[in-house]
């Protein structure tokens, strides 16, 4: 990761600049102002989150995004089904999930994703390496499913993931 | 099309209204905290529909602010409304 920081600075500036173009494009994009805005946003972003996460693999990202889109539809449908079913089929409860990702932004990115996945909302830490997950249906194979998601997520950075 | 989008906006707003009644009644603070989330998402949907139906592109910017503000308010709710009152034993 020797040239890592610069790479990620450039990537962030580019990303924020793109966002600027998207936001102001409807009116009249002013690129000079956009560059200033992107630099400001990057500066804040670098101060809060120094570039330390290695490089992201585009293929893995695409795979994750696709899976995520599908899963968020499943999640919505799942909730809708349970809510509209006259019998209200809920078996709520908590599950402890041992997470392999290191604490910090990476893990939180994963838990953020998790809270949009079907049936799960992370609700805190049980112990340093174990998340408390609230489930709508504890009879689903929640742990296995989460492990699969985590594997996909970990593949993003090319890291071996810690959990089954 | 505009009429349909307006009807859709009214519908979304109506569902938000009903949800809001439920949430405001509590009983937990955590229930009430969800109001910002509910109005954030529902309000954004309404605004986006309105922006298209009435050709007010600026409504999308309002939606953008709503998305940011929903986070701000939720964090304030959680941080100031719940965590502190626990620290102070209320």
């Amino acid at each position, binding site marked *: 990761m020797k040239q890592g920081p610069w790479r990620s600075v450039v990537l962030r500036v580019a990303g924020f600049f793109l966002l600027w173009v998207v936001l102001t494009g409807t009116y009249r994009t002013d690129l000079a102002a956009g560059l200033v805005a992107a630099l400001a946003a990057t500066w804040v*972003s670098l101060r809060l989150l120094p570039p330390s996460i290695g490089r992201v693999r585009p293929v893995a990202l695409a795979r994750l995004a696709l899976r995520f889109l599908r899963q968020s539809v499943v999640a919505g449908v799942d909730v809708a089904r349970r809510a509209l079913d006259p019998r209200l089929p809920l078996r709520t409860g908590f599950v402890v999930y041992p997470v392999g990702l290191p604490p910090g932004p990476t893990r939180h990115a994963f838990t953020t994703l998790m809270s949009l996945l079907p049936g799960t909302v992370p609700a805190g830490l049980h112990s340093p390496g174990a998340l408390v997950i609230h489930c709508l249906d504890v009879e689903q194979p929640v742990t296995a499913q989460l492990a699969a998601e985590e594997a996909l997520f970990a593949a993003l950075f090319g890291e071996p993931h810690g959990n089954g | 099309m505009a009429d349909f989008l307006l009807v859709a906006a009214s519908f979304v707003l109506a569902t938000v209204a009903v949800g809001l009644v439920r949430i*405001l009644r509590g009983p937990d603070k955590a229930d009430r905290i969800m109001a910002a989330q509910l109005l954030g998402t529902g309000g954004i949907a309404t605004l986006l529909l309105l922006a298209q139906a009435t050709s007010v592109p600026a409504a999308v910017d309002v939606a953008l602010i709503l998305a940011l503000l929903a986070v701000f308010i939720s964090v304030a709710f959680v941080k100031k409304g719940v965590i502190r*009152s626990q620290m102070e034993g209320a």
Partner: protein
Amino acid sequence: MALDAVLAVLVVGVAVWTVAARDTFAAVVGFVAFGLLVALIWVRLAAPDVALTEAALGSGLTGGLLLGASTRLGRTEAEATGELPGGLLQFAAATVSVLVSAGLIALVLLLPEPAPTLAPKVAANIAATGLQNPVTAVLMAYRAIDTLLEVMVLLLALVGMWSLAPDHLWGGAPGRREPADPDGVLTFVAQVLLPVGILVAIHIFWVGSVAPGGEFQGATIFAAMWILATMAGLANTPPVMRRSLRLLLIAGPAVFFAIGLAGFAIAGAFLAYPADYAKLLILIIEIPLTLSIATTLALLVAGPPEQEPQR
């Protein structure tokens, strides 16, 4: 129209909740919801500039402020419900309120429609300001003096608020310091969202000359993001005697005054802009003004100095 009916009923309903809720926290939550809904009304009334302000300032920052207060007061507020006024006062208050409402309803129905309007005059003169957003033209050109004095009102509110500090805390930082939790979710929220928020704030500010937006709305988002950072423990408020803070606070109005006074010489009147440079000069004013307003708003939420000054 169906939409408007739903919206009107909903807004009034939430307002009733805000008034009637026993629990102050619940009332504040109701008020925040109320503000977000009023922002929708402003969109319906073809006033997106106001909608942006209402959502960010009227609902967002005000909500955060009241929420902090309701929590700090905590149990005392609950106890205070014991001192509810007698039935007679309630009845009298209800009578007065109903009369006022009824009178206003009558007046609303009496208001001429179409109303007398300054819109044509705004349109006829907008070229001289170099702006395309008529609301910004009113705020920065036609009624610039109101805007200037209003920023002074904000600053005075801050001076007044600071003056409430106990003497031994003067010079300390406002508000309480929040503990940082580097591995917490809140930190993550701030890490990801703050830069995006900054970008959005600049966007809202920047488009203000051509489209809805402007310095107040942009500044409010800046302030909200700053407060988010302090709530996450990622930043602390600066001590009130720090010179750079003071300069940041006055930068906007000072530049506004400077260009306004220069108007005597270069454009023939206080707060007048020479037609060819109007847009540029307004931009030069707006940039520091946004920063000053943002700082002031954030510090108004933070409150009087509560941390021991470092000697």
